[in-house]
């Protein structure tokens, strides 16, 4: 796993629940340092609120009796709603494919064997296999020109967050395209897959005859990270590969791992995977050693492309 840092901007605790020291006056009857019961609010504000800046965790929220202040309950509800929507928002595969085509990639859209979101969530096995139609589409492509089998098959899968793909797929591929050019790797069409889990890439990669498959997938949304993208790399994809045979870069999003850095790390892993002919637990991500002040080193584009 790539160690992606996630600092999720946690708004200052208790925002809007109580006016702090409103009007600059302390109630005259309070002479101790007790921070509670300012004015007539029943909200107990926590005196350690400045610790909240040390962690994305929801600390120092204050309380009303044993409960959460209203503003906190609503803030939580909003985060949960966004995470739920990330799972259930219909995947706009045509729009995503058009955006990817705009970067200069060929694209093809397929579906998994799961025919709806409800079935997809209950039957992970179906999300890992292509629909019969999707399989036929990809096999037709491959038979068209077997000699043109790609080094790298790229799959864009909605996974558990279509929101993540809507937001991240095109800008990430824009950053990664430069790394593809830099290394002279041949890719097939970008396969945009609906109701798809990571392992669907195994069948796609095999159908295209690719040496490696990279799956961009919407990650299981966290309460503070509904739009996080995961990148899974598998050498010699074929149905039946296990997670131990993959490498993963996770938490690709604005507040996490940037698109540029993720593209650099993925290219580093791909280079190693193609040279060593493996992915998985035996391939450790050491790309951090090459970072310059925490950033990806600049592109070294071939002359023709620069």
């Amino acid at each position, binding site marked *: 796993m790539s160690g992606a840092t996630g600092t999720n901007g946690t708004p200052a605790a208790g925002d809007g629940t109580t006016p702090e020291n409103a009007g600059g006056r302390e109630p005259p009857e309070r002479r101790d340092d007790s921070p509670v019961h300012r004015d007539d609010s029943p909200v*107990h504000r926590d*005196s*350690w609120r400045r610790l909240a800046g*040390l962690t994305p965790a929801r*600390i120092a929220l204050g309380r009303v009796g044993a*409960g959460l202040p209203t503003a906190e309950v609503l803030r939580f509800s909003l985060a949960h709603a966004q995470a739920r929507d990330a799972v259930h928002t219909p995947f706009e595969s045509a729009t995503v494919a058009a955006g990817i085509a705009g970067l200069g990639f060929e694209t093809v859209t397929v579906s998994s064997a799961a025919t709806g979101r409800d079935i997809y969530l209950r039957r992970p*096995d179906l999300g890992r296999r292509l629909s019969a139609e999707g399989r036929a589409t990809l096999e037709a492509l491959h038979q068209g020109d077997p000699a043109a089998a790609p080094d790298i098959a790229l799959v864009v899968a909605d996974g558990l967050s279509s929101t993540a793909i809507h937001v991240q797929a095109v800008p990430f591929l824009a950053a990664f395209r430069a790394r593809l050019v830099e290394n002279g790797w041949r890719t097939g069409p970008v396969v945009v897959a609906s109701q798809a889990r990571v392992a669907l890439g195994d069948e796609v990669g095999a159908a295209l005859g690719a040496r490696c498959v990279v799956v961009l997938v919407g990650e299981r*949304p966290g*309460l503070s*990270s509904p739009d996080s993208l995961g990148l899974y790399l598998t050498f010699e994809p074929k149905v039946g590969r296990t997670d131990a045979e993959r490498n993963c870069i996770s938490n690709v999003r604005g507040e996490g791992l940037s698109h540029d850095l993720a593209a650099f790390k993925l290219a580093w892993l791909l280079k190693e995977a193609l040279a060593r002919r493996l992915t998985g637990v035996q391939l450790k991500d050491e790309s951090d050693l090459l970072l310059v002040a925490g950033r990806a080193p600049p592109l070294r584009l071939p002359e023709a492309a620069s």
Partner: protein
Amino acid sequence: MAYRHMIGARSWVFADLRELMAKATPPRSGDMLAGIAAASAEENVAARMCLAEVPLATFLTEALVPYEADEVTRLVIDTHDAAAFAPVAHLTVGDFRDFLLSERATPAVLAALAPGITPEMAAAVSKLMRNQDLIMVAKKCRVVTRFRNTIGLPGTMAVRLQPNHPTDDPAGITAAILDGLLYGCGDAVIGINPASDSVPVLSELLKLVDGIIQRFDIPTQGCLLTHVTTSVEVINRGVPVDLVFQSVAGTQAANASFGIDLAVLKEGHEAALSLKRGTVGDNVMYFETGQGSALSANAHHGVDQQTLEARAYAVCRPFRPLLVNTVVGFIGPEYLYDGKQIIRAGLEDHFCGKLMGVPLGCDVCYTNHAEADQDDMDTLMTLLGAAGVTYIMGIPGSDDVMLNYQSTSFHDQLYLREVLGLRRAPEFARWLTEMGIAEADGRLRPQGANHPLLAAAPGLAA
């Protein structure tokens, strides 16, 4: 051996005890995914009616997972306490439910019975029980454990303070620990799920937790939820370890997927005991379990996930754990689809564990792709509080920013204490009072910015 049951003119046939148990299980997505669930609502009830007639002793001779192939089955059969079982040895599963609900099944009787109950017996009777039965009987079961405090006394509920951080940042973890302590949490354990598995990082975190416990003389224990072999390595390097943790499952093959077997657990147990760090007892193990783990490892032997979960408690039992918890909604909707299934599973797991004499707590939780929300968690935690749950999790604002799921919060335990009158572990409750954090009745006191605990806050030290 096949099992049959007639309803009117229709004869329902179940090929063996394993199929009967699976089809008698209340509906859940994991058993459907495995292809072993009842095909209709009537078949489900027919299986329960049939199961009610099965003698309890059958489970000692008809193994659901083959004895030869599985060390968990061998552990259950080879260590079965026939003397403890004797008082109920003549009962059927249906009679056993009646017995458990009756006045005859007092806390003392149930405690004496526990070593005679196999996980399959506990699972079988639970399948005949409604939610209120699961609550009623669990409440009568007493399981008390000790390390630096006393957990599981009647009328108490403990809380694991879970101060996780996405990058194991010591300042962030310290901030969450202080927040939790000031909300009166942490008597079960201060337990961190680390993002890292590097021994130097883990050692620093263990020292951090131990430092806070020592500095303020807190009657509680720390734990890092890392692989048992890593804990042994850390112990060998002289780092302070209170409790040794491991996730466990109900079959040998599923445990192998976690990289453990009973011998490895024994090694971890002995390493923790050798440190003699407990002050009031020597329960040194912390285990986590959860329905669906065996199926997800393709190691379920065609057995339903609830029965396999009860078998995980049989794995825990010989190691006399301080704490065991079922992480009930963590894996996802393919195992427990919605709030209804999560609530039922939480009550089943708690009941089975307690009946078997294991100190069961519950991570009342859900993921964002499950059909569940905070209202479902409120329901389950309230029911478990009524059932006498040993402990629940305490996570800042319910949002675990490392594991990306929602569990119970520091506030939730305040709510449960208030509505159900549940107290903390007595040693910890005394400490909270001495520190001016809580009143004698357990309610929190308002705190000023100069509370002594805050002197440990990063960047705030005087």
